[in-house]
């Protein structure tokens, strides 16, 4: 699957793999936008780490401190169970931030694939733009990039599982009343 058609200076990932991975990410986005959260959860491995650090404004010389470290606070620092709890919450009918439901649109961009640490893992980098409409007037854009580790899996419905997702937003101060969404 990760074999290459020919050597290329830009990327060694063949176009068929690129196609499959892009479709996988589009499918994931579609599950979220269609509120098929249980199917969405199934795309993640049981040992997934789903992480979005916080971010601060820093001068260039201290830019390494821009994102919170792994031992600091995060917007999301979730294992599979925590993701499931979030879905449980939304499904409760009393999650006011999502009742009435938000209208989300996940736009996946600039997908760059690299071979991962193990032969069955890929490192997938994508830009994400999430547009959220809520109630009659709320509009939010959540923009950033994601680094996913995708793991090939026989058991997975779609051949791959997301084993790690790190999300880096391009906002420091979050310009939204809440993040009742997934990225």
């Amino acid at each position, binding site marked *: 699957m990760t074999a290459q058609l020919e050597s290329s200076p830009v990327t060694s990932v063949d176009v068929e793999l690129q196609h499959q991975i892009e479709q996988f990410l589009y499918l994931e986005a579609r599950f979220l936008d269609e509120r098929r959260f249980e199917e969405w959860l199934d795309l993640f491995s049981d040992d997934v780490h789903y992480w979005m650090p916080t971010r601060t404004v820093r001068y260039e010389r201290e830019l390494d401190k821009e994102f919170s470290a792994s031992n600091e606070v995060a917007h999301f620092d979730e294992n599979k169970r925590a993701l499931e709890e979030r879905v449980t919450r939304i499904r409760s009918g*009393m999650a006011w931030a999502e009742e009435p439901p938000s209208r989300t649109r996940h736009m996946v961009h600039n997908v760059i694939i690299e071979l991962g640490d193990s032969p069955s893992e890929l490192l997938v980098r994508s830009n994400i733009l999430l547009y959220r409409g809520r109630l009659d007037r709320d509009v939010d854009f959540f923009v950033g990039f994601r680094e996913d580790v995708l793991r090939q899996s026989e058991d997975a419905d779609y051949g791959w599982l997301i084993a790690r997702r790190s999300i880096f937003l391009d906002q420091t101060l*979050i310009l939204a009343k809440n993040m009742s969404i997934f990225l």
Partner: protein
Amino acid sequence: MVVDIRGLVDAKQGTVDPRIYHDEEIYQQELKNVFARCWLFLAHDSQIPNPGDYVTTYMGEDPVLVVRKRDGSVGVFMNQCRHRGMRLCRADAGSAKSFSCSYHGWTYDLSGNLVGVPSEDDAYRNEINKAEWGAVKVPQVDNYRGFIFGTWDPSAPPLLDYIGDFRFYFDAFADRTEAGTELIGGAHRWVFPANWKFAAEQFCSDMYHAPISHASAVLALTPDDQDVDEEVFPMDGTKGRQFSSELGHGTGFFVESGDVLANIVGQKPADWFQGGNPEAIGRLGDARAERMRGAHATLFPNFSFLPGINTLRIWHPKGPNEMEVWAWTLVDKNAPADVREAQRIGTGRTFSVAGLFEQDDGENWSEIQRVLRGHIARRSSFNVQMGLGHEWDDDPDFPGKVNRVYCEMAARGFYKRWADMASGMSWDELMASVRKAVEVSG
């Protein structure tokens, strides 16, 4: 001033006029009479450990620099150049030797003194009196147990007088061990399109919203074998206490029930916080170190925290219709590693912009605010009557004016203090009324 602010809050009848959340004129009075006079939380010692370390924050809407000086003390001054008003430092935090303005290069030392002026001789003929043109300094800065506060008002009473009878409750959060507390790195910051008082009041006085507003989060986090109403969020208000200070502060909590903490941040932090720390019991006694549960608290006006869950936050006003939330996670410095780790994750997961609990607060506050665009909507008073007239002040465990935990007594106290201050009442009057209240109740 057209509006008579004191008339907008009737603490005796338990009503509040909704214009206090929406009116621009009232807001400007608030900036002037509340935020430019109160002691405001600025930073925690642990954020700026070394000389030159700084954070930028706001006092009301005024940006300030909070800087660790070379002598170890903390300097606080306007983040505004005296020349043409440029923001001196545009980072959230960092380390610096001095602050040099990006417009014309005036340079200020770590105390905010103006120490360098380009071409001082040639352009200014050495006539500029640099001592006069330092950054505007916050005249009173004090540190209580690692929490740094400041006030613009040189005549404000000392910090401990300002905290007053709330100190007993603040200590349960801030004074648990000799080693003290520290903030975990990183912060949650976000924008709420709602007046800051909705948030401050809620943390001051509102246990009552939790079972409804946060029903989904409680449900998601409660193991199947627990009974929510009995074990997690008892609906019996006698199982807890609310405290209200004449100074505007307030807190509420369960006593020996309401085991929400284990579900939120895990069993280990719950054990640690609720009896597992012998030093804390020694310092605070068992009421505060063992039996308090699920507390919420606000130090007037806009500094709130949840002991146990250990989020703390400022509600920065940004106009009458908007606030910013800046939230951190606090840990006992000497807490075991697994307690600390559980707290780091659990607090962020529940009380943050993406937090299971806090998401829903955002929905409520923002929609209340939107409704206030209406003319009729601003004409009918809100109801703040819960528990009116039922307080007592001789509780064996919890000093001061207390009531059942589901109550709005502390909200009435908060709004009364707010109205007194916002209307321009002097500190003499403000503190006299407190003494009188204490005498009456004492």
